[in-house]
């Protein structure tokens, strides 16, 4: 029984629940630090519609039934937030996934947007593509999509390894705008020199709060910041104990 883990879980659940109840509906909306990796995506979607191209959203090789479930769900919020806009522009994005369990969720996000806009018959199921099951094959396949389909911008977000560099290189060859968000350290290392609009680590999990003005996302970031302070205090506390030799 890992007491520390249980304590931390209960604490996080309490803080999030209280905040969602109290400030989930009313009260001032928390101001969040803007991230260009997400904020510039609206512009790119507009430009793609004007030039008759499309935005390529690469959701990575993470699946829903593994450790990368939450990373993939966070990256999926980009598709959910962008769906209504690109449907109204009649410029659907090209979404590539590297795990078959993520494809249904991405398809649902686009299909529901078409239904909300009253044009369900215009929904094209091939906007979401399961490219390949392994990370390297997925990265090479997604790079091929970026190079050959008329793509104006790449949004790389989700669970990647160092092979994400293949997608970034294909985008650089086509002079496409590169926006990226990754949680894995190997992908961050590979993306740091490839684009200057990079959401680092936990910033990937703020996609919902950055791209929509839904209050629940912003409020959960407040909970995240409170927990952050608790973690720092825990580290300093442990260090204090260690110095006193009690550890």
């Amino acid at each position, binding site marked *: *029984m*890992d007491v520390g*883990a249980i304590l931390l*879980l209960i604490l*996080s*659940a309490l803080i*999030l629940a209280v905040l*969602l109840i109290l400030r*989930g509906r009313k009260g001032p909306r928390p101001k969040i630090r803007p991230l260009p990796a997400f904020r510039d995506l609206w512009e790119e979607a507009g430009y793609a519609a004007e030039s008759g191209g499309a935005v390529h959203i690469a959701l990575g090789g993470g*699946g*829903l*039934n593994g450790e990368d479930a*939450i*990373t993939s*769900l*966070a990256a*999926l919020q980009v598709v959910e937030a962008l769906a209504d806009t690109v449907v109204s522009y009649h410029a659907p994005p090209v979404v590539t996934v590297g*795990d*078959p*369990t993520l*494809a*249904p*969720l991405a398809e*649902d996000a686009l299909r529901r947007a078409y239904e909300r806009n009253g044009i369900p018959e215009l929904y094209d*199921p*091939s906007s*979401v*593509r*399961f490219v390949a*099951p*392994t990370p*390297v*094959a997925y*990265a*090479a396949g997604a790079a091929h999509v970026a190079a*050959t389909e008329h793509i104006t911008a790449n949004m790389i977000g989700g669970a990647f390894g160092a*092979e994400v*560099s*293949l997608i*970034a*290189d294909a985008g*650089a060859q086509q002079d496409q705008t590169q926006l990226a968000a990754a949680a894995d*350290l190997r992908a*961050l290392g*590979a993306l*740091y*020199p*490839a*684009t*200057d609009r990079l959401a680092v*680590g*936990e910033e*990937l*999990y*703020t996609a919902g709060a950055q791209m929509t003005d839904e209050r*629940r996302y912003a409020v*959960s970031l407040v909970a*995240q910041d409170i*927990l*952050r302070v608790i973690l720092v205090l825990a580290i300093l506390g442990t260090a204090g104990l260690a110095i006193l030799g009690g550890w």
Partner: protein
Amino acid sequence: MTKLIRRWIPSLLFATLPGLTVLAGYLSPDPVLGYLRDRLVEGAVIVAAFAFLLGAFNILRVHGGKIGHREQGWPYSLVLLIAMMVAWIPPLLQSLVQRPQVQETLDDVTHALFNYVIGPAGASLAALVVFTLTLSAFRLMRVRRSAGAVLFLLIVALVLLGSAPFIGLEWLANVRDWIINVPGMAGMRGLLLGVALGTVITALRVLFTSHRPHSEF
């Protein structure tokens, strides 16, 4: 009433309940919870297997559509579909055929498929990553012109040269060790803790059904 049924019931019954059970299975050593956790995770693996069938259907539809509409690059899609149709038969028949002689040929074919097509091609693509990484490092100053970029280049150079130091530059190995185990470790830990924090909050939002990617509402 229908909205309550269509919004909350699927989320609570099919997402939150199994999720909390699996979580309890991991956090507590109780064997019953452990058994339930394993069965639920195995169930997820089975559902994921059906999802793979759906993924294969998605590939058929996308590339079939490209061939049907004669879109640009349709011959490549034809090659992909042919390879796919051929490649799934040997591994499947391996478990269905009982006769040893046929079994052996199937083993050889599957072995050959893996070792002489999938293996080399996959490794070659992974090898290309060194080329794209070097190219992006070459253009670093075009994308980012800041002190951080210079520091980044310096660190990469030291760690690379320190991993297989030339004779006479053995001190680079110690510098590499220090960079990896002190500043590198601190930065990595800060990032990992942040990612873990984001994961906890996002996961709790899903379990609280505040974020319902699977629901129509």
